[in-house]
């Protein structure tokens, strides 16, 4: 048992730190720290910076142009990225679709789509959830019917994150309605510019436009855009979901968030003393910090096992549940910390203060972030679904 990083891991961490210090543009990290939108252009710029270093695809094998990091290296990168307020890598193409193409795609699909993911030619979004198929994803209804060299697709997807930026969408579609739900699903790659596709924004409760509805009306998709075999899509979807759950604990985000809470609470005054000196508030912070320290070690234990070849299954569900609870608790602390300044909707509104304030840029978005991050325990398999998995595996003796 040794809780410290090896010399190689420490050297890697130093390299990542130096990269963040030298290559991450300040205007970009400022935006992330203040909870601002990076936008498509900013996101693509960060991808290009990472790609230039060879770090855009940490989990890809080297033969496809990836960094082929092990789980501990990926963890170190994610932790440093969060600490430096780096943008996250948009995961849909690079972390979710790519592993499926690498394992199940044809040689032609790999040769065509993978380089375009790295050089930023395509922006992918994910067509999984439907209005009636959320937690119960296998009940999806979007229909694809074979017609010569094409599939004709009709139906609707929802919660399509950043679909407004995407030129491509990977979709789960029903190709056989007459068999068991899981056995009639296929995995299709669809060009968003195809006639019959309509994208409508969904405005979230914090006023942001990050998700969309996507409608398909007689959309023609060439059969060469089928990944793997027809009606085997559920297998690929499940494989993809295991990749969706990397960095599931969000330790880096929580650590950065907790630092922000403390910074605010040291500046904010309550009853003539810094809020951080208030025993009730200090107790709230300490409780979360205690939980986070333990979860951070749980995360490393599971990552180390994965790096040694063990496959995280039920442990990933545990990290998702505990990780989201902790992140949401930190969001809650941040909104408490800023007091009445949690109420304004616009961060720029409280500039020009003539007194010491919590950094006004930090006070502005904390309540909006609190509301936005309610999504953490809903998407990617809600915490109820995760608890179901844990209970089934641990109490029922196998998945």
């Amino acid at each position: 048992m040794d809780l410290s990083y090896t010399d190689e891991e420490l050297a890697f961490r130093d390299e990542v730190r130096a990269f963040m210090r030298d290559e991450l543009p300040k205007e970009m990290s400022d935006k992330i720290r203040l909870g601002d939108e990076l936008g498509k252009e900013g996101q693509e710029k960060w991808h290009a910076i990472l790609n230039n270093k060879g770090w855009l695809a940490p989990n890809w094998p080297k033969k496809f142009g990836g960094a082929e990091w092990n789980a501990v290296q990926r963890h170190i990168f994610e932790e440093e990225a969060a600490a430096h307020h780096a943008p996250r890598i948009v995961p849909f193409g690079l972390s979710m679709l790519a592993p499926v193409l690498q394992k199940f795609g044809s040689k032609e699909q790999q040769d065509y789509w993978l380089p375009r993911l790295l050089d930023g030619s395509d922006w992918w979004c994910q067509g999984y959830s439907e209005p009636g198929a959320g937690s119960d994803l296998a009940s999806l209804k979007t229909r694809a019917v074979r017609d010569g060299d094409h599939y004709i697709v009709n139906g609707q997807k929802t919660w399509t994150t950043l679909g407004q930026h995407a030129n491509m969408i990977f979709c789960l579609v029903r190709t056989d309605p007459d068999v068991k739900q899981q056995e009639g699903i296929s995995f299709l790659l669809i060009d968003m510019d195809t006639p019959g596709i309509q994208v409508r924004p969904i405005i979230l409760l914090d006023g942001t436009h990050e998700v969309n509805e996507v409608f398909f009306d007689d959309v023609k998709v060439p059969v060469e855009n089928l990944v793997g075999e027809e009606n085997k899509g559920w297998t690929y979807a499940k494989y993809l979901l295991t990749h969706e759950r990397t960095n599931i604990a969000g330790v880096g985000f929580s650590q950065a968030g907790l630092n922000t809470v403390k910074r605010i609470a040291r500046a904010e005054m309550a009853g003539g003393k810094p809020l951080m000196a208030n025993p009730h508030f200090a107790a709230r912070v300490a409780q979360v910090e205690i939980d986070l320290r333990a979860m951070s070690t749980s995360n490393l234990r599971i990552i180390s096992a994965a790096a040694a070849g063990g496959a995280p299954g039920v442990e990933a569900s545990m990290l998702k549940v505990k990780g989201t609870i902790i992140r949401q608790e930190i969001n809650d602390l941040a909104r408490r910390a800023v007091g009445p300044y949690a109420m304004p909707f616009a961060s720029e509104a409280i500039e020009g203060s003539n007194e010491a304030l919590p950094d006004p840029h930090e006070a502005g978005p904390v309540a909006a972030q609190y509301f936005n991050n309610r999504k953490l325990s809903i998407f990617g398999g809600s915490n109820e679904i995760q608890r179901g998995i844990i209970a089934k595996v641990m109490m029922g003796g196998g998945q």
Partner: protein
Amino acid sequence: MNFDLTEERQMLQDSLRRYLRDKYSTATRNEILERPNGMSEEVWTQLAELGVIGAMFTEEQGGFGGAGFDISVVFEELGRAGVVEPFMDSALIGGRLLAACGKTDLVEEMIGGSLQLAVAHGEPTSRYDLNHVRTSVDGGKLNGRKAVVMNAENADHLIVSARASGDVADEAGISLYLVAKDAAGLTIQGYPLLAGGRAGEVTLDGVEGELLTEDGFAALSDVMALATMAQCAETLGAMDTATRLTNDYLGTRKQFGRPIGTFQALAHRMADMLIEMEQARSAVINAAGNLREETRIRDMNISAAKNLLGRAGRLIAEESIQMHGGIAMTQEYELAHIAKRITMADHRFGDTDHHLERFIALSAA
């Protein structure tokens, strides 16, 4: 013992609930939220005609209510419908401060629905401390900065607290002034609020106003007691809506071939929400029913309610969103606004921890 509303209060509740159900839909409110002034004058006027504002004042003040349960009935309905018009800040806090200072002509205008007020008391570093006033008055000139002043841009007059003497945290030495919206040296930097309505940062640079009282702390304490109770009632109404929406959703939304409410993991949490609703209702009754008791008893009940509503409100807002799933994250769905109202209420008149500490201090007194 009798927990029934009087006939008059029942009638007011019924007519108010009917009006808001018919005229204040999610779509209507979302349109109001986008307006430059953050409110609907039509809704304000019509609710004034229904007696909503008159119910906040005693007969001596020109109204027809003014007691704890008159006010709680009104605000529970406003909360149930997620009303964003500034009845709390303009009518109740502003109006009752003017009434306490004998400005009967302006109170009459307020009850008639033709006046808008803002109370500029909190400051950038005062957080929830009512005694913290740094804004100064010297030779009749007001100087300072007021933070998150609700309804500031819409107000015809601002009621401004200023320190005439003493240190920044002294209860004595705080005066209240009535300042016209176009007074020289007054600037307002307005912004929308996350849960609807608007507020602003108010800067006072040698502003002149009319002295209302030199014992501002006493007037503010009494009116903020009313307002905190009213806030609890408003939040109770919002929590009731969240609970009802969630209950309905669990019965209709199907996943895995059955209504999700049939999953025990959700059913038990729904039951916990319903239990907390009863606790919250009783806490509001305790606060409203003790408003005219001696100050310590009054304030213990108010702090108890605000603390309990803070805890139960968080549970109900978060659990309602979680059990709905993604739909509750969308601005088009009623719960999104209601959940924001519930959570942001914790940032008014002292949060959960503030009132826990106040309850402890009052208990020891």
